[in-house]
């Protein structure tokens, strides 16, 4: 099982690295969808092998909501508003983004080793931490609201990886509530993104929102 986890984690890291240097929103959405399906497949595998119905439920929700529905919703909005298609002015250069992403992977590993490794004893346990940091970096390094939202959902996927494999067993009611809340926040975020006349890069940078 640990080998599969390492493989899935490594693949997830690669996908996120691709998202870090990609500027076309549609490709980032598709990559995110693939990343979500991969995590869903892994959770499904764990659920079946260990007969954990809750993990199977998590897998199905991950596939349906983050693998299919949200990417579909975003792509549909892009068709309606073609200006969302490409990040016009990325905050950071592509080369710097790649460098930072690689640094984050190393940093996550060091952080993991000095904090929870002694309790977890899992060599690839730093992967979810790296994914959380990568998601956060994607959010702060981009101006396009859709890409920021994807950064947030990468963090969510990493949490699911954490609780699905490394620390399983949260009470069902809590898990269900978390899933509902996360769906809620993504739905509200979707509404707000739709309300924006332009991407965040084009928003009126009013003086009042500074300082």
């Amino acid at each position, binding site marked *: 099982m640990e080998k599969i986890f390492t493989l899935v984690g490594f693949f997830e890291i690669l996908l996120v690295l691709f998202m870090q240097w990609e500027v076309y929103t549609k490709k980032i959405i598709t990559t995110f969808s693939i990343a979500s399906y991969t995590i869903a497949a892994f959770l499904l595998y764990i659920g079946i092998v260990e007969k954990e119905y809750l993990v199977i439920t998590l897998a199905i929700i991950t596939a349906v909501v983050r693998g299919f529905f949200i990417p579909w919703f975003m792509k549909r909005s892009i068709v309606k508003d073609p200006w969302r298609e490409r990040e016009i002015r990325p905050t950071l250069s592509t080369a710097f983004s790649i460098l930072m992403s690689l640094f984050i992977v190393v940093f996550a590993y060091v952080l993991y080793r000095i904090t929870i490794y002694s309790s977890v004893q899992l060599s690839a346990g730093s992967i979810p931490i790296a994914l959380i940091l990568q998601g956060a970096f994607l959010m702060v390094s981009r101006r396009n609201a859709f890409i920021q939202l994807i950064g947030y959902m990468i963090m969510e996927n990493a949490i699911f990886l954490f609780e699905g494999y490394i620390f399983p067993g949260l009470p069902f009611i*809590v898990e269900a509530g978390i899933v509902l809340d996360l769906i809620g926040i993504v739905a509200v975020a979707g509404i707000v993104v739709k309300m924006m006349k332009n991407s965040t890069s084009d928003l009126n940078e009013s003086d009042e929102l500074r300082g």
Partner: protein
Amino acid sequence: MAYIYTLPMIFSAFGALLCLVRRTYFEEVVSVIVSLATIVAAVATIFLPNFSNTFLYVDGLSKIMLIVISIVYTSTVIFSTTYMKYMENPLFEKNFYYLLMNVFAFTMFFTVSVNSFGMMWIGVEATTVTSALLVATENNESAIEATWRYIVVVSSGLIISLLSNVFIYASIHTLSFSNIMSMHITHADRILLLGTMMAVIGYGTKAGIFPMHTWLPDVHGKAPAPVSAIFSGVLLPVALYVVARVLQAVPVGPLKEFSFVLGFLTVSIAASLMVVQKYYKRLFAYSTMENMGMVLIGLSLGKYAFIGAIVLITSHAFAKSSAFFLSGNILAKYKSRKIEDVKGIFKRMPFTGYTLMFSSMAVTGTPPFGTFVGEMMIIYGILKNFPLFYALALTSFLALAFISVNSKVGKMVFSESSEKVMERKRVGRSIPIINIALAFLMIFLIPQIEELLSKGMVK
């Protein structure tokens, strides 16, 4: 028996449902009635013993929070009935605004009544889901951007607190607050310590604690006045309520010191930023941040400082909601958020002028308001636990905040203006006065707060 403790939740949820009915003024009347009912239900709990089962945990702290939420919720709903008339292009219809407000109140009642850290997380995250659109009510570009920042920053912070739940569960195999309390934890392993620290950062994001505070001034500055009032008055303290529970459940040294440092940094950063503020709503937002920093310090120190933190939460809730209501009245008349554009409030809107001056004094911890007593108790806690330098440094930041807020508000209120009086007798004028009176009356209720925190009920 349990149903009594859930009444505030039931009333607000029922009110939200009724708001689906589309009739002129129906949603306003319903919301006012249900919010008043939540006050009655919340006050009733203080005469009942503490209660806990698998789902609920209602002790003295929860009861105080229930009362504060219900009062600020009620005043917000009543104030909204006049304020909504000034909104030129609202994002949605009135009934949807009240529906969201009632659901939002429900999520806050839920958070302070549940027994599990997992459920508390759900409650806090649900406050974001239900309140995000309220921020964008005024439907302009900068309000929508502020909403977006709110969603992105707060949700990221809450991802950290979600991870904290995973870590806490991994370490002690339960998220139930009552179970954790019965363990009497005095030593935390690495995962538990990391989890609890993440909880402070994660929920601290929602409470405007440094370094994840960046959403706070934008949202308070751009949200409609009643929404800013309820955010500042009770939403932020609800997030800190969870931090208080974490500190109660795992009272280990490094966690307390970590919280103290974050609180101290929050006060110092907020006080410094207040000096350069040009917009009055943002000024009050930074003042909220400063007060939340003080509350976190109080919670981390425990004992008298903990009581001081709760006194500060309650009196700040009333005073700050009053300040934001008044800022709404000023905005409606002056059509500007800039401090320099607002002149002679005292002459043009005398009631608003007086009340605003009292509100700004109250939020900066001036006697005789409850905030002063709360801050004094916290400073006493610092003097007991740390060298004198810390108390002096903190006091100087508080003094800086006091000077910044009161001098800027003083300029707005007492400056000359040749314009005529434009204040009208409306409910929107009375609500801030009632709230500021409550902020003062809190000093007489400190023994009851202490009794509630120690015994769980008032006899």
